């Protein structure tokens, strides 16, 4: 019965795989591409003018320049790639549908703004402002001031968990549940101000880049990083996780001008590293696995097989596309989902360029739909809330959900024999098997009794039985002993253990004092090193 069921699952999995291959035939749209005919031609020699010419009427709409004051600018696309939110460092915030050109909200906040992100869809966005994070609705009305997020520098929204994560100059990573409003977790990173954050879209782990060159990976349920690695010498300035391989690769860039690609399954050394011209580099992976590196005065795009293949020499991988942007500094690069568009934020506004082959051509309407209407959006919001995954379930390995529980390390063997099931063991044996039995308790108790006996012997050799009993009883009512007696539940309790240790220490001191008094021991001479001793 059992085997047949597992066989069924295997058959089902195989069938699902073939069905998936069949379904790929039905995909409607084709990915963009840039192809050369011989080795002498290079794709990076193709300028944007040529690409626009080749893209035709429809495709060329993606090539845009927004000249704006108050830069440098950062931008963020909504999940369906239809809406764009931009923020200038001096407080110019705007959200708009970039295809139709309708502006939803335009605000002059008149204070430093460091980052912006949409929440579940275009109807809310959060801005990391000078002191706090603020949440605005689609029309730009301020809804919330999140006072817990102090001096935020970077924001990320985890769409399937409905969590807004922020990190700031205080070095705290904070998770706010945007559906209930609760602050789910706040982690002290202990690495000072943090200016680099990225999320892995496939397991909702937050990657932070620190000033000391450390990259750390965080989940809400752990107060320490799940992974910590020294990625760069000097501050980490850019981070991005590859969505095209299910979050398997991470790219990081440092203030020292190097870019490194890491394999998230094996952190031992970077897969590939190279040095960029012009220093500090911003990074972003596209849905199809193109890596954009904005540094100095240009944006370079590298494509997939070469950037992820291990390669020892520290040279840049073959370039796919390059575009000069003469407005330093370049502060953000974002790929537009489901489009071949790369948006670069810089000092003079934003520019969008076409990067053929970088976008996922076929969207799934149940996840994100660029063409969705009002009703669909509402329905998606409700469905998303119903399917909201609790924050505790974020882990490095997403597949732990629905997999078999690991075999327990506890064994019910008593004297190496398994003949009695756990439920029928006596309580003491059950506790022993669980590793909870307090063995120190018994020994301690015996020692106390021994001590009193010794004292009795020392004073007056012979005592009547009643007197011994009486002596034994004395001191039983002492509050500490009573406490310890009440704690005698055969379960290891940290407080009881601590008190027992303290009593032990006091007893030892008394014994030493007595020995010194009798002349059996010499008092310890004070030493210069005593100042380092822990009391």
């Amino acid at each position: 019965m059992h085997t047949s069921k597992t066989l069924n699952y295997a058959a089902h999995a195989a069938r699902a795989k073939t069905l998936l291959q069949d379904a790929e035939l039905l995909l409607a749209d084709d990915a963009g591409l840039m192809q050369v005919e011989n080795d002498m031609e290079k794709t990076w020699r193709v300028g944007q003018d040529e690409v626009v010419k080749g893209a035709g009427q429809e495709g060329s709409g993606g090539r845009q320049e927004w000249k704006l004051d108050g830069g440098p600018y950062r931008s963020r696309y909504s999940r369906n790639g239809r809406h764009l939110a931009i923020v200038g460092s001096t407080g110019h915030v705007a959200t708009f549908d970039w295809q139709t050109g309708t502006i939803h909200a335009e605000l002059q906040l008149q204070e430093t703004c460091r980052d912006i992100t949409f929440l579940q869809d275009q109807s809310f966005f959060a801005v990391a402002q000078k002191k706090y994070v603020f949440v605005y609705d689609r029309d730009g009305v301020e809804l919330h001031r999140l006072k817990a997020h102090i001096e935020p520098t970077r924001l990320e929204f985890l769409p399937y968990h409905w969590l807004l994560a922020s990190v700031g100059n205080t070095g705290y990573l904070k998770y706010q549940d945007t559906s209930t409003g609760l602050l789910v977790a706040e982690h002290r990173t202990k690495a000072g101000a943090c200016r680099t954050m990225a999320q892995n879209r496939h397991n909702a782990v937050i990657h932070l880049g620190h000033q000391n060159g450390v990259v750390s990976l965080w989940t809400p349920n752990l107060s320490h990083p799940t992974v910590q690695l020294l990625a760069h010498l000097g501050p980490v300035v850019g981070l991005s996780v590859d969505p095209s391989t299910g979050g398997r690769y991470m790219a990081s860039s440092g203030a020292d001008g190097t870019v490194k690609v890491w394999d998230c399954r094996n952190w031992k050394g970077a897969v590939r590293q190279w040095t960029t011209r012009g220093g500090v580099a911003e990074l972003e992976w596209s849905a199809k696995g193109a890596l954009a590196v904005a540094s100095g005065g240009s944006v370079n795009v590298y494509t997939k097989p070469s950037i992820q293949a291990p390669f020892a020499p520290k040279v840049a991988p073959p370039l796919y596309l390059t575009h000069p942007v003469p407005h330093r500094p370049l502060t953000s690069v974002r790929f537009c989902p489901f489009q071949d568009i790369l948006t670069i934020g810089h000092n003079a506004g934003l520019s969008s360029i076409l990067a053929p082959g970088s976008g996922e051509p076929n969207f799934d309407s149940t996840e994100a739909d660029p063409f969705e209407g009002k009703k669909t959006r509402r329905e998606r919001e409700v469905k998303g809330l119903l399917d909201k995954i609790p924050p505790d379930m974020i882990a490095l390995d997403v597949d732990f959900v629905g997999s078999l529980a690991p075999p327990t390390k506890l064994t019910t063997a008593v004297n190496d024999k398994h003949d009695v099931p756990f439920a029928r063991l006596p309580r003491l044996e059950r506790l022993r098997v669980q590793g909870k039995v307090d063995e120190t308790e018994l020994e301690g108790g015996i020692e106390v009794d021994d001590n009193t006996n010794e004292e009795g012997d020392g004073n007056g050799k012979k005592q009547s039985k009643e007197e011994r009993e009486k002596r034994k009883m004395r001191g039983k009512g002492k509050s500490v002993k009573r406490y310890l007696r009440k704690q005698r539940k055969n379960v290891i309790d940290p407080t009881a253990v601590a008190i027992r240790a303290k009593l032990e220490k006091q007893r030892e001191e008394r014994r030493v004092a007595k020995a010194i008094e009798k002349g059996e021991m010499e008092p310890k001479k004070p030493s210069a090193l005593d100042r380092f001793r822990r009391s």
Partner: protein
Amino acid sequence: MVKISVLQHAPSTHLPARPGDPTPTSRNLDPLMHPFARARERMRALNAAKMDRIFAKPFVASLEGHIDAVEVLCKKPGTVSTIASGSWDGGVIVHNIAEQKHSHRIQGAHKGKVSGLCFADGDKLLSCGVDCNIKLWDVSLQEEDSQQKPLNVFAGKSPFNSLDHHRSDRLFATASNIVQIWDETKSAAISDLTFSTATETVTSVRFNLAETSVLGSIGSDRSFTLYDIRTGKAERRVIMQMRSNALSWSPTFPTSVLLASEDHNLYTFDVRNLSSPLHIYKAHVAPVMSCEWSPTGLEFVSGGWDRTVRIWKEGRGTNPEVYHTKRMQRVSSSIFTADARFVISGSDDGNVRIWKAKASERLGIVTARERAAIEYRDSLKDRWKHDQDVGKISRTRHLPKPVYQAAQLKRTMLEAQRVKEERRRRHTRAGQSKPKAERKKIVLTEQT
């Protein structure tokens, strides 16, 4: 020459062709497009399990009318909504459960309790009582007549405990101190069936539904007896550890018979091999007083002295669906309706209650979309039933405190018994006492 193409979505394929049309959807089954698919599906399964418990409102209605405890219920073959109930006060009521009304009412049908009730051909109802009479009533629609005369009265020699009508012929069987076969047209019993060595009170008798001449009975002798009316003899008989209170033949599996036992369990037997039961069904905490198969033969209902009604899946011996209310007393009779959607219970408090067979089923018209959603939720629950949280939510049932405590006590006692038995075995010589399977303990002797 460099070949360049840039990704474009044609609005014509993704936008509705005319205003008002639904927006076309597109699918991409690539797993990378669906992050957290498993975790989200688990959340959906969890919600489905919760919704199932939220909507679990099994009680439909209570049919009043009897002034004393309801003793017996029967449904009319070939109809969905007609059932009859007989009570300790001697009254018989024919209910229309669709309209929740009395369609016919006979007061004082018998002196003392009505112990057996059964529909005959057409609109005729047979009832028997402890007043040693069997009466045939005409219950076709008519105005209420308290002094209604029976069509026919069959006089017996001793109080009757049960009766059942033959599937097709105009015959019926009664249980008193012997089993008797009667013809509707004759005033005296046409044959007496009794096991040669038995001197017991027969408490219940039922015709097999497929092999229509085979008859089963249970008696105060802790016995289950099989008869054949063609030979006119008792064929086989088994004596069990405890007596049974009710029996029911499976409608789909003719050799399978269900017994509701005094020892809190239900047993299914294959009549070809009566040495041990096929299955033991354990959950009641008091004697089981009644049982009946669903017309599908996949589940059955039982009512017990512990004031609960339980609905069991065939072959699954634990964790039945359990129904109870504050005011429902000991359940002396329980039946499935002919459409297998409802369960009727009659109890000591004089009420006949209608329950849904599936606690969270929605009554009324269900649209196709709703139906699809329900089916999706069911399959999710099934798929994730091994998950700790999902399984716990769909398994847990609230029980009244006395029932819960009785179950605890029972578990403790059984555990103690088992431990004692184990210790005894450990201290006897090896091989001297072997553990006996639970199923082998039930039947004491088999007689032919």
